[in-house]
């Protein structure tokens, strides 16, 4: 058994004074909360920094374009690489945290299907907006609105208010980006998502210690 020094002194039974018990209870609770957290603060902060670097880098290349032509061919692999790494890192860490856990914490198949549909519907929404003459149809932040709202809705139904707030914040970044212009929307996306992720990390860290 992996005892703390205090626990080793106390053994599995016998003398176990209240101070040792309080220390062990605190340590065990914090450790369990850390291990069960599907998106730990370090991962959220890393994602925040990477998204700021990826989208901020694109903003630097497009901000001087007159007229706007969009990201260069060199930017696309960086963005795609970020999306792929982010997806696999998130899934891997989440699966490890949720290993052996069954119940409400796990997403149900219908919820996963809703999220996939929300992402899949994005191109259709963008095409429809473009056809309707919306100038922001192809802005990067437009992509965020529907999945953000879907995540917020699913989380609200599960009464999980922190991820619900994250979903709403992502959707809000999407809406704000629509008013930032073609180049500016990349900056809004990078800074906005970075702030959302760092805020989520801070809240998660605080809840682990509470």
């Amino acid at each position: 058994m992996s005892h703390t020094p205090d626990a080793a002194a106390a053994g599995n039974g016998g003398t176990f004074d209240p101070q040792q018990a309080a220390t062990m209870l605190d340590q065990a609770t914090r450790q369990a909360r850390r291990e069960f957290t599907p998106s730990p603060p370090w991962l959220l902060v890393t994602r925040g920094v990477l998204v700021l670097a990826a989208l901020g880098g694109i903003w630097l290349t497009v901000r001087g374009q007159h007229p706007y032509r969009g990201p260069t061919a060199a930017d696309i692999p960086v963005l795609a690489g970020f999306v792929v790494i982010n997806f696999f890192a998130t899934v891997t860490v989440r699966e490890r945290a949720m290993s052996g856990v069954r119940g409400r914490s796990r997403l149900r198949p219908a919820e996963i299907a809703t999220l996939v549909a929300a992402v899949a519907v994005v191109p259709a929404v963008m095409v429809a907006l473009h056809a309707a003459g919306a100038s922001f149809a192809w802005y990067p932040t437009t992509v965020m609105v529907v999945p953000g709202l879907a995540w917020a809705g699913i989380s609200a139904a599960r009464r999980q208010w922190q991820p619900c707030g994250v979903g709403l914040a992502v959707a809000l970044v999407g809406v704000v980006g629509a008013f930032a212009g073609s180049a500016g929307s990349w900056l809004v996306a990078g800074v906005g998502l970075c702030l959302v992720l760092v805020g989520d990390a801070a809240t998660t860290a605080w809840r682990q210690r509470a």
Partner: protein
Amino acid sequence: MNDDALDPLIHVPTRLKIVATLAALPDGDTLSFTRLQDMIGLTPGNLIIHLRKLEDADYINSEKTRNGTVSVTTVALTSQGRKALAAYTEALRDLLGGL
């Protein structure tokens, strides 16, 4: 107040760890025996002994399900177990004058 105020079933290092670990899961979630064993660091035999004591007091419930040829045992803290841990924590606070 003295140590007698502390629930003797929880006031044992290993069982305290078990209960604190299960309490970190949201109400309604269950944890597999193997993951719990991995987190607590006990042999299966030792863990079973402690879980049985907690189950006898209705602090946890366990369920064995079959998935093909593999049987999976899951454990969860009951509402009575959560209340017992809350009372134990409160008693500790009283004894120590606030954690």
